[in-house]
């Protein structure tokens, strides 16, 4: 069985589906037996979720006006 260090190295690639079949099998075998790495996997999911939830920073009103005016000035050229 692979060591925890190797398993943790693969977790994000596993979630990204950027891992080959043999490595995936080894990881899943490890996760089936290791509570610590299951915790690491859950935390990796939470960090990813945190990043994804930050996608929609609203554009402040004055910044929006400035950028719209900038685009309009470009369009008038």
């Amino acid at each position, binding site marked *: 069985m692979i060591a925890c260090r190797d398993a*943790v190295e693969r977790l*994000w*690639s596993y979630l*990204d589906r*950027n891992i080959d079949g043999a490595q995936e099998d080894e990881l899943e075998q490890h996760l089936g037996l290791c509570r610590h790495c299951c*915790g*690491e996997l*859950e*935390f990796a999911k*939470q*960090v*990813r979720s*945190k*990043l*994804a939830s*930050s*996608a*929609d*920073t*609203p*554009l*402040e009103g004055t*910044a*929006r006006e*400035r*950028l*719209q005016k*900038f*685009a*309009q000035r*470009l*369009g008038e*050229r």
Partner: protein
Amino acid sequence: MDVHAAAPEAAPSFVTLIEPHLDYLYAFARKLCGERMAAEDLVQDTLLRAFRAQDSLRNRERPRYWLTKVLLSASADQWRKDAPHEHDVPLEDERFSLFDTLVEEDPLPYSDRLHLDFLDLFDDDSLTASLQRIHAAHRTALVLAYVYGYKAREIAELTGTTTGTVLARLHRGRKQLEKALWEYARQRGLLKGEPRT
């Protein structure tokens, strides 16, 4: 002559083309630059470049993807000047585990969901600030992959590199992010007993 034939539609104005994407461009620029004014400057630079190449924009089926590429080009020109070399991640950062550090340091002793509560300390501004501690090339890959959901091969195409390089940047970026979140929380006094700065 068919007098009822529809008149040819006027081409949409530049403003009409970019307006639906302004929020996205600004949010993306904030993640890459951190500061609001720097983000606004980057979006302006992007709009200028897009305007100069707008014929290309009009013919695109995925304008947002195309605008992303323009913004990344503008951003890369900036960070290549500021930090031209990708730094190796120090060995101590390679070995750093935020998951383990939280268990060992127990910075939120009253929490029964320690790891989630730690992440809840971060609002959008503090998450953006933490991202600024990561090398620009690694940060760019992280933001594209995990904030906006691009696949590694798309990131390679968007940033003009190989998928292998993107995967390496994501790996380094994730390790730096773990350290950056921990250091930010410590230095800003978000944890127990730390003076707020």
